[in-house]
C-alpha cells in the first residue's frame, strides 16, 4: 500500500537519509526503530510531504506522492502525528478535533469519526470544552492521535507517541494504537522505546545513521543480536 523507495533527503547541507526503502501493507502495524537522530522523523516527514526528498520516490497504491503538497496528502488518507503531539494549545479540545476533520471528505464524516474518537478516548469527551493547553501530557498525546483520526486516515504515522510519558500511560497509548490498527487503520510507528515497539508490531525496520540496517518480524528483531546489544541491554 505504502512504498518508500530509495529516498535521499536532508536539511540544508546535512543529508539525513541515504537510500531509505520500506513498505507497509494494508492493515499492518509496522515500526521504525533506531537511536536518536537516525532519521526516523525525517522518514515520516517525507511520507507526509513536509520534507521533500532529493532522490527516490514515495508511492501510495502505486501513485507517487512527491508532487503533492502535505495538505493534499492528508486528504489522500495519510495522517501524521508529530513528535510531542503539537496540539493547538490555544484552541479547545473540540476545536482541535474539528480541525482534524478540515478536509472536505472528512468534514462530511465528522460526527461519525467524533464518536469513534470519544469511544477510544473517553477522557477527551469529558474535556472537550477545555483549552488544549490545560491538558496533561498524556491527554495531549491522546488528543493528537484523536485529531489525526478525525481525517479518517487509511494510514496513521505516529512519531514517538510514548515520548515523555509515564510507563503506565505508555502502555495505555500502545493499547490504543493496537486497537486503532484492529479497526482497520494501517499504522507506521516511529519509536525510541524499542522493546515496547517491537513487542507490539508484526514487522519492523531498524534505521541507523540514515540507513535501513535491518528488517523483520518484531520477535525476530528482538532476538537479533545487534539489536539486543544496541537497544535492549
Amino acid at each position, binding site marked *: 500500500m505504502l512504498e518508500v523507495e530509495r529516498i535521499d533527503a536532508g536539511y540544508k547541507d546535512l543529508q539525513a537519509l541515504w537510500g531509505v526503502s520500506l513498505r507497509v501493507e494494508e492493515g499492518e502495524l509496522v515500526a521504525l526503530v533506531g537511536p536518536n537522530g537516525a532519521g526516523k522523523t525525517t522518514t515520516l516527514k517525507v511520507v507526509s510531504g513536509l520534507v521533500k526528498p532529493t532522490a527516490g520516490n514515495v508511492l501510495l497504491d502505486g501513485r507517487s506522492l512527491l508532487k503533492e*503538497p502535505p495538505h493534499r496528502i492528508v486528504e489522500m488518507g495519510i495522517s501524521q502525528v508529530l513528535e510531542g503531539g503539537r496540539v*493547538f494549545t*490555544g484552541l479547545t479540545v473540540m476545536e482541535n478535533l*474539528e480541525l*482534524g476533520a*478540515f478536509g472536505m471528505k472528512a468534514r462530511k464524516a465528522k460526527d461519525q469519526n467524533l464518536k469513534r474518537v470519544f469511544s477510544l478516548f473517553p477522557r477527551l469527551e469529558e474535556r472537550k470544552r477545555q483549552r488544549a493547553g490545560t491538558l496533561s501530557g498524556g491527554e495531549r498525546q491522546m488528543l493528537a492521535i484523536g485529531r*489525526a483520526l478525525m*481525517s479518517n486516515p487509511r494510514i496513521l504515522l505516529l512519531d514517538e507517541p510514548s515520548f515523555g510519558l509515564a510507563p503506565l500511560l505508555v502502555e495505555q497509548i500502545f493499547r490504543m494504537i493496537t486497537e486503532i490498527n484492529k479497526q482497520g487503520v494501517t499504522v507506521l510507528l516511529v519509536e525510541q522505546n524499542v522493546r515496547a515497539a517491537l513487542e507490539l508490531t508484526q514487522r519492523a525496520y531498524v534505521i541507523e545513521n540514515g540507513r535501513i540496517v535491518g528488517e523483520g518480524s518484531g520477535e525476530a528483531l528482538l532476538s537479533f543480536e545487534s539489536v539486543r546489544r544496541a537497544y535492549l541491554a
Partner: protein
Amino acid sequence: MLAPIAQNLAFGILVGGLYGIAAVGLSLVFGVTRFLNVSHGELLMLGGYAGFWLYTLYHVDPFVGLPIVVLLMVVLGVILYKLLFAGMVKYPEETKVKNTLLVGFGLGLVLQNVALRLWTADDRGITTTYSSQVISLVGVRFPLVRVASFVIALVVLFALHQFLQRTYTGKAIRATVQDWEAATLMAIDVQKVYLLAFVLGTALAGMAGALVSVGYSIQPNMGLEWTLITLIVMVLGGLGSIMGTFVAGIILGVAQSLTSFWLGGAYRDIVALVLFLLVLILRPQGLFGAKEG
C-alpha cells in the same frame, strides 16, 4: 478643568477605535504569516484616498462607499501578495521577518511617492452635509462622523472575532497562527490561509484609512506615522487577541489626546513612540511573540 479633560478623553477614545481596527489588520498578517509589513500605514493611506476620490469624483457617500474601498483593497492585497510576498513563505521565520520588513519598507516608499506625485502633498478630508453634526452628552461633544466610524470599527472587529471563533476557516487561521506545520497536517492549505490573512489585513488597513478621511484628514506622508502607531498597538495588545488590540488602540488614543491637552499638540506624536520604547526596555519578553492561551 474637568470638562476639557472629558472632551479630550472622548476624542481619544474615538480615534483609538481607528488605531484598533488598523492594528488588528497588521496583527492578523503578522500572527499568521510572520510577515512584518511596514507598508501597512501606506496601505491605510491608499484606502483613505480611495474613499476621498469616490466621494469627490463620484459623490459616493463615504459610509456607503466603504464596501467599495474594501473591495479595491482586497484586489490590491491579492496583487501585492502574489507579486511580492508569496515567494517568502518558504523562508525560516527570522529571514521572513527581515525580508518582508525590507520589502515593505521599499513598498511604502514607492506608494508614498506615487501618491505624492498623483495627488500632491495637500491635506485632504471628506466634508459631507452631516460632517458638522455633533452629539452633545453632558457637555461633551461627540462629532457624528467620528462616532459612526467608531461604531463601524467596533462592529467590524466583532464580526471578525466571530468569524475567527466560529467558522472552519477562522479556526484554520487560528491554528496556523499557533503551528503552521501541524496545521498543514490537518489538510489546511497554509498558503491559502496566508493569502487570506494578508488580504484581510490589507482590507482592514484600507477601511481604517477611509474612516480617517471622513473624520480626520489624509495626506501622502501619513504612512510612516500610522505604521508606527499600528506596530505599537499590536505590541501593546498582544498577538492573537482582537479585543486586546482594540483596547490597546483606545488606550493609545486616550494617552495621545491627554498628552496634547497637557503638553501641547506637538508632543502627541511622541507619546506612542516613548510608550513603545519603554515597553521595549522594561518588558521586552513575550509581548511580541505572545501566543493565544
